[in-house]
Every structure is written in C-alpha cells, then in structure tokens.
C-alpha cells in the first residue's frame, strides 16, 4: 500500500474534520476525498476509519460497493458510455465497440498516455436522445455517433 504524501494526508484529515459531525458522513467524505485527489487511495482508508470510529473493513466495504469510487487515479478525462437498454436500442453496443477500438482499451481501463479512462454507466437520464455519454463530471452528450465519438476524443486532446 502506497503511503500518502503529506499533502494528500492533509486533504484527507481536513475532509474528515469538516464532515464528521454530520449524520451518516462516510459517503460524503469519500466523495470529497475523490473530488480532491481524483481517487480514494488505499492508504486513506485507515485515516478515515480512525476519524469516524469505524473499522477499516467498514470503510473499505463502502469504497468497493459503489461504482463511482476508484482506488486508482483515472486518466485526465473520464468518458462514461451508457450501456443501458434505451441506448442499446440506438446502437450503444456498436458505439462501445468503436470506442474501445478507437482508444485501444476496454472498459475500466485508461489509455497508455493517461488521456482518457473509459467507463460503462447504466443510464444518464438522456434516454430520449440515445445513445448518450458523459465526459468528466457533467458534460453530457446525446445522439452520439461513431464519428461524433472520434470528434469528442480529438477535442479532449487525445492522440494515438
């Protein structure tokens, strides 16, 4: 387990201090840690557990339960491709195949140059404009074609 740097440790401790008195704070804390550090480092788990008087297993259990939390850094951008029924009805499987080929990676992987992580997502609520994807935290796109996908990755500065 890689130790936290001093600045990472400071982030985790300040997030815990900020949220610990709120009711049911663990997910809020993990979200805040990931927002600051880009992921939830394994070494942050004991610190959070100690701050909330929980066991490490309880914290680890929450980190691993939810799809959103990651224990490794992502690429500079995360592209989430919707794989749910409405998008499938409009070619999401073919689009996923194209995206994987274009980036040379599978779901849950990051391009070798660290530009883009590709994640599946199950519904972005953009079902009347399927197929959909979301870039990073809030850049939603609809009616995405293979060509549109290529334009998106180019605009994100990805070169292969």
């Amino acid at each position, binding site marked *: 387990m890689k130790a936290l740097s001093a600045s990472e440790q400071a982030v985790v401790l300040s997030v815990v201090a900020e949220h610990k008195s709120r*009711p*049911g*704070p*663990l*997910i*809020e*804390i*993990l*979200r805040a840690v990931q927002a600051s550090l880009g992921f939830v480092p394994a070494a942050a788990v004991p610190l959070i557990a100690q701050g909330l008087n929980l066991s490490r297993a*309880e914290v680890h*259990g*929450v980190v691993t*339960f*939810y*799809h*959103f*939390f990651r224990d490794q850094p992502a690429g500079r951008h995360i592209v989430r491709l919707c794989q*749910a*029924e*409405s*998008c*499938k*009805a*409009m070619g999401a499987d073919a689009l996923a195949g194209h995206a994987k080929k274009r980036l040379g990676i599978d779901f849950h992987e990051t391009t070798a140059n660290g530009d883009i992580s590709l994640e599946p*997502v*199950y*519904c*972005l*609520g*953009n*079902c*009347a*404009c*399927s197929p*959909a994807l*979301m870039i990073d*935290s*809030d850049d*939603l*796109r*609809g*009616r995405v074609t293979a060509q549109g996908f290529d334009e998106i990755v180019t605009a994100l500065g990805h070169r292969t």
Partner: protein
Amino acid sequence: MTTDVYVPRDASALSLGAEAVARAIDAEARARRIDLRVIRNGSRGLYWLEPLIEVATPAGRMAYGAAQAADVASLFAADFLHGGAHPLSQGLTEEIPYLKSQQRLTAARVGIIDPTSVADYVAHSGYEGLRKALAMQPADIVQAITDSGLRGRGGAAFPTGIKWKTVHDQKAAQKYVTCNADEGDSGTFSDRMLMEGDPLTLIEGMTIAGIAVGATQGYIYLRFEYPHACAALRQAINAARQAGYLGADIMGSGRSFEVEVRVGAGAYICGEETSMLESLEGKRGEIRVRPPLPAIKGLFGQPTVVNNVVTLATVPIILARGAQFYREYGTGKSRGTLPLQLAGNVRRGGLIERAFGLSLRELLYDYGQGSASGRPIRAVQVGGPLGAYIPASQFDTAIDYEALSGIGALLGHGGVVVFDDTVDMAHMARYAMEFCAIESCGKCTPCRIGSTRGVEVIDRIIGGVERERNLGLLEDLCETMLQGSLCGLGGMTPFPVQSILKYFREDFHAQPRH
C-alpha cells in the same frame, strides 16, 4: 422593451448543444444592440426539438427548434424576436399537438418557468399547496393525499396516503422525509426533468410531507449521474430558504423544515428504499429485511417517509386544487396523471404526462411517430430493466397499473423503451441477468449468484449447447430468483427474461453467434 428568450438548461437539451445556443443568442444580441434577456428554463420534453428556443411574444411563446448555435444569426435575421417565420419555426409552443394534447399536472411548470426563481414559481401558482397545508391539521393533509388516490410513482405504486399515515401515527422525537431521486431505470427521466425544470415543486411537496407527518428534516438522495439536477436543486433550496419557504419559520407559521441533497455514488440498488436509507446513512447500499417498515423504523432508526420525486412533486397540486380535482383524472385504481417517458428507438421521444388509460399504441405511434430507424417496432420494455418486454400484439394495452399487470408486465416509473426489429432479444435477456449481476447488493443468494448463473446459462443457449435442457434450466432459475430474492432486483430481473422466453423465444434458437 426587453424581450424574454428561453433556452433550456435541461441536461438533455445541453447534451444537444443548448449552452452554445444560449451563448450565441447573447453574443448576437449584443452585436446588434438588441435588449433581450435569456432565461434558462427546463425542457418542455419535446426532445426531438431540442435545443428548443422560445421567444415571449404578445401572442404567447413562439418555438424554434431544433436549433444549433449556427442557426442563431439567421433567426435574428428572420426577426424571431417578434415571431418571424424561419425554417425552424414551430409556431406557438402551447399549440404543438404533442404538448397540447397532454394533461400536465405534476409537470405543469416544467419548461415554463425559471427553475430557480421563487418569484416566478409563486407567479405560476407555486406554494399555494403549502399555504393551504399550513392552515390544515396534519391528519387532514394526510387524508387529502389518501383521498386523491395518489400512488407511489417510483414503481411500487403503494398508496402514498397510507404510508404518510403510518409515519404520522408514530411517536418519535425526530422523523424524516426522504426523496428517492435515484432514478436508475433506463428509459426514465421524469425525475430529472422535474428537478432541473421545476425543483421548487419537489421542495414544496417535501415540506408539505414534513408538516403532515411531523418531520423537520428532509433528504433528497440524488444519483451522481444527475449533476445538472444537483445544481438546480441546491440553487432552488437556497432560494426557498432566503424567501422564507424553508428553515425555522416557514411562511411565518412557526413550523420548521430543512432539505439537504445527498449525492449517491453509483449503485442501481440504492433506488430500493431500504438500500437508499443505508446509503443515506453513509453505508454500503445493502437492502434491509422488512419488517420493520421504513415508515416505522427508517433513516437512523426513525419513522421515515420514502417517496419518489414525481410522487412528492404531485403533492402541491393535490393540496392546491383538492383531492377530488386530482382523482377525477385516471381510470380504475390508477388515479391522476403519470408523466410517461418515451425513449430508445423512437422518432419523437419525450415526456408525455397524461391521465392513466392511454394505450401503448397511442403513445408509440401518435406521440412517438414510430421508430427512429423507420423500421417496424418489435418490442417495448416498460418500467425499466426489471420490466417485461411487450410484443406488438399487445400494444393495445392501456397504460395503467392494473392493465399492465394483467398482461404480466409492470408500469414501474413510467419509462417506455422502444426497440425495432433488428433487436436480438436473446441478447437483451442476457443483458437483464448481466445488469443484475453488476448491480446486486450481494445480500441474498438468488440475486447474487443466480444472476451470474443466468448469464452463463443464456450464453450456453445462445451458443447452441444443449438448448432445450438449458432453456428449462433458465426457466427454473427465473422461478428461484423470483421466489427467493429479498428485494425487487433479484425478484424482478426474471420478468424481462420470462417475457422474452414467452414472446420472443425464437431468438434463443438463432444460429450460434461467434
């Protein structure tokens, strides 16, 4: 005089370029020294016309869509600010048949008002429900909801008034109102549209619920996939608090209510109410065994109302217009209206709020105008990933809780996903099991293990390995999951699979795919 121009801030409209359209209008107006105000409204729900620009004219709001930033200069040239003719002109928004034929009660203000303006909300009859509720006895508020016939719009269709009465009757120092905004079903977006387009309706509904049951704290459990809804809700909550509609002394009544948005972390199961409560407490979203019901022992062990966004957003109009007004809409035991969501492979997808009783055929062909691909519609999945696939032979079924349940389907949260005749239904059956395996909370065996075995057995069937024996095994597995699972995820995943076995069985007998 300043002209008001509306460009949606709705996530789907943004996904099609609404932000660039809004910026282009602003820039063009400044270049032409024209005095206008761009208001960022919600979406009207006519998604094939998004981004939809509306201009306020003396005759009413004129619609132009689907517009891109590149169209803006020509719109100004055509004098769209005075309703000028343009290839994108759709006439008066309210006269567009898709919208005109609807019965918008819950979504009455969505797409019309500035979602974060309390003044605009109040000018469109907002907070009339709360005003009336504050003058009533809590038990009478509960009775009004019971009398309206409102049932939970999240999918379970449980009578809302009965749930509220249970919480009302509990003695506890602290009670909670929680809103389930974990709208995870594919093909559904009515919660999102409401939260982005008229969040104050939800906040008002929660406040009324709080006063009715004696709760002072509300939580909205919102999925992380809805960042735009999160922003709109937080803006609206702050605006409501500043205007005295939330906080320690609501509208000078001495009553107190607060609302907080909690964002989830990606877990379909957290749309199940007990799992949502666990997640709100900051834990793994594993479901709780019932009893006790959340109404008796819910969030942090206290009596808790758990309602869906649409349910709570329907409460204000019931209080404002009366239970009788609301229950006059609908049919049989399905009273009121339902905001249906039409999605997938369909020409005109969008939000269609109508009284219960519309037929699937009317929805698909009158509103939807058939498939987007122009090919025949082969199947629709109603009610999300746990809903049955319905074949074309049953499209005359009415859209209400009882009629759909009568053909072995379910209405769920009102999402309808359209598939054309290129769909491989064996693949969709496999996906149903795969989705359950990905999203299972792991607490019970039929769901956790059954879903994975389901994927494997379907792979063998598709691959042509002992097809008949494995089809029998799949049917048996479906029965086990249905009977043995603790909650609806494992217990309903068999519904789409069984419907495919029943109506689209031939797809399992196709040639083995590579």
